[in-house]
């Protein structure tokens, strides 16, 4: 008879065992806040289709303190989301070799971060100017 009695350890609370896993969970759950924000924006578009008064009411609702707080939290979350999105992006594409040299992951992520920053500044400038 075999003397083996393998012990299988439970996985409860696995994401609290390592800061790396915790950051992964924050990264993934940041998408929820992003989805909520997208719904709010889409609601605005829908209200706009209903006329000026409806849009103005939606806009006024956004100025309440809770809404302001939510937007600040959403802004910080989307910044972290963008940071992690570009950080893992190079893992999802084939090795990129240009002129016989492999392009590093840091360089690829850096291009993404720079593009995100440039686009954000451009959109903000356009919104201020308009």
């Amino acid at each position, binding site marked *: 008879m075999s*003397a*083996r*009695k*393998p*012990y*299988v*350890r439970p*996985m409860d609370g*696995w*994401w609290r*065992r*390592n800061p*790396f*896993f915790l950051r*992964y969970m924050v990264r*993934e759950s940041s998408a929820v806040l992003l989805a909520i924000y997208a719904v709010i924006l889409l609601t605005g578009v829908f209200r706009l289709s209903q006329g000026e008064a409806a849009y103005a009411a939606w806009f006024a609702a956004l100025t309440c303190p809770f809404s302001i707080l939510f937007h600040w939290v959403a802004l910080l979350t989307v910044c972290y989301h963008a940071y992690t999105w570009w950080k*893992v992006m*190079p*893992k*999802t*594409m*084939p*090795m990129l*070799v240009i002129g*016989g040299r*492999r392009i590093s992951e840091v360089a690829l992520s850096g291009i993404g971060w720079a593009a995100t920053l440039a686009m954000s500044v451009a959109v903000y400038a356009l919104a201020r100017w308009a």
Partner: protein
Amino acid sequence: MSDGTRTIEIETLRYRPEQDTEPHYQTFSVPFADDWSVLQGLQYIKDDLDSSLSFRWSCRMAICGSCGFMINGQPRLGCQTFLRNYYPNKVRVGPLEHFPIERDLVVGIEDFIGKLEGIKPYIVPKESRTLAQGEYLQTPAQRDQYEQFSSCINCLLCYAACPQYGLNPEFTGPAVLALLHRYNADSRDQGWEARKEVVNAEEGVWGCMLVGYCSEVCPKGVDPAHAINQNKVNSTLDYFGVKKFLLPKGAAE
């Protein structure tokens, strides 16, 4: 012991199936020199303090991949981790996470071995050549496409780092999928067609949620997360019947 020797507390997990119902930690005081690895600490315990302690090891130089442990909660090779970096705190050594514990620090790896055999971990030639036709030629650029993924030593640190494997042991897992990519990306191999069932399966690349910790802990720089996730694109294209234009140069058409 020579001068300058310090003493560190090593807590190791104990599980003796014939007498324990569940694992527990046991603490040993181990005198160590500056150049002692955690593995040497364990060997001191086995030689001088408690010969019943079980653990795997062989080469002592990060080649064989036998001495993977959870060291203070992180998957690491015992031979590559130094006691001096933990002193004066204690160091806690456990068996690799996500595998069943057989005894003390020894885990059962049959599941991994089975998966490893299942991916045809050898070159399936694109065209068979006779001896008279000579060897299969390859340029340095073609070799670069897979070389990194061929450095795996099967130490299983990446499996211990992968919560997806812990939650669902059906998942093929980092090292096996990285090795699969190593052969797919080899210009001498048939590539995609030879192993696509494994890749496309739900427990293939799609079981990966890109936690990415596997690539952090790999002692050989294999980067399994990269091998797996670039094949999600290939698997998607395959689903739509598109030719693999994203496969590495030289791999199968």
